[in-house]
């Protein structure tokens, strides 16, 4: 992590209700440039909802979200422009099944950033090479394994050259033997200086890659700290209970 802390994403008193259900109960948090943050916590605690508020896939009920100093949930905000700089990777991959692997990657850069087809393809091939998928470029996603689909989803997001990457349980839908390959890709990304916010149940991985851990429980950040503090000396009884169950 860099010494000078430049805020990248800021939430202020972020609240989200689904009908009567209060899912986020006021989260104020700052994510700095270059930080790698892992979000952990019990199921239903609001981890995904929090992450999805950061790129406005969920509209906050109350409170604010700032990205690079701009308020995202303002009427005048061009959200598409910001989303181009906020990559997101989903548990279910969500690759585009009707497009070849290469076109999955070049679609958004050519359409929305007006990057010439040829240049976009070159970038895409480089990215595919980095994740070991060069030979799959002309295939349709149905020919890929789960792990390969997820690596495709990651480079598809990377092709937009985002300033931050959000991951929502990127390995939870994978067969166990596929998990390692995907985690390695994410780790490489994190080590390269990319700001990452990762919701995960992989405790070993969280401990290894993150600068900071957020423990979200019942709609609030119940505890946060460096992995060292968090795993060896948790303060909140809820954290202790959670860790005793998962470790």
């Amino acid at each position, binding site marked *: 992590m860099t010494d000078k802390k430049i805020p990248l994403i800021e939430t202020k008193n972020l609240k989200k209700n689904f009908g009567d259900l209060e899912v986020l109960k006021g989260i104020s948090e700052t994510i700095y440039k270059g930080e790698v943050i892992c979000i952990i916590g019990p199921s239903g605690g609001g981890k995904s909802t929090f992450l999805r508020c950061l790129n406005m*896939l969920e509209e906050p009920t109350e409170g604010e979200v700032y990205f690079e100093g701009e308020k995202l949930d303002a009427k005048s905000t061009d959200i598409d*422009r910001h989303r181009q700089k906020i990559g997101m990777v989903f548990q279910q991959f969500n690759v585009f099944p009707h497009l070849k692997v290469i076109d999955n990657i070049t679609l958004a850069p050519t359409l929305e950033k007006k990057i010439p087809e040829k240049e976009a393809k070159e970038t895409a091939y480089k990215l595919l090479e980095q994740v070991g998928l060069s030979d799959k470029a002309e295939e349709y996603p149905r020919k890929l394994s789960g792990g390969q689909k997820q690596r495709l989803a990651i480079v598809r997001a990377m092709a937009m050259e985002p300033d931050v990457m959000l991951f929502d349980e990127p390995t939870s839908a994978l067969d166990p033997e596929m998990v390692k390959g995907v985690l390695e890709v994410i780790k490489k990304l994190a080590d390269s200086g990319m700001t990452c916010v990762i919701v995960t149940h992989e405790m070993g991985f969280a401990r290894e890659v993150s600068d900071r851990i957020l423990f979200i429980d019942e709609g609030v950040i119940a505890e946060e700290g460096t992995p060292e503090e968090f795993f060896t000396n948790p303060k909140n009884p809820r954290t202790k209970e959670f860790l005793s169950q998962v470790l």
Partner: protein
Amino acid sequence: MGPGILDVLFEYWPIFLKGAIGTLRYAFIAVSLGSLLGALIALMHLSKSKILSSIASLYVNVLRGTPLLVQMYIAYFFLPIAVPVLNNVDKEVYVLIALTMNSSAYVSEIIRGGINSVDPGQNEAARSLGLSASHTMTKIILPQAIKNILPSLANEYIAMIKETSMAGTFMLYELMYTRTLLANKYLSWQPLFIIAGIYLIMTLVLTSLVKLLEKRFSVSD
């Protein structure tokens, strides 16, 4: 009893042929124009605007909830009164308007269903990449929805082939109208079996074409 079915078919086949072509043509026009109108209704239905979506929903409910024959009568007798410019056009147009509107209601539900059948994760992935709403629709959602839409549209065409039989009531030259023509020649029952046979052949052939179409689409899955 009079002459047999085959005798009637051999003597009057040009009439049946003309009727069959009329049927296919009316069904084609109704479903084609109905698809354009139906796409518009579907977009209204899916839009965020409450007003637009309730108008679309009302339109669909009225047209699907009342008999086509009643709609045809209304078009035939009321349209010329309500819209005087239509007074000079061929009577055929009124009936076609009814068929087209009726078809558009069914098509709009087909399109809406096709769009809704696409995994919502596709929309989220596209939007999170920064794709605009319209690019997401045209490049991600519709290309996937079309697989469900096209076979259903073809089925709508097959259904419409049968529905157009009501247009004969208004003297439009389609397959069922041949019954009226031949009844003048004291042929009461033979034409009915020929007509039924031709409908059956048309729908069976088209149904097997749709099956082929569906197969081709599922291969590219």
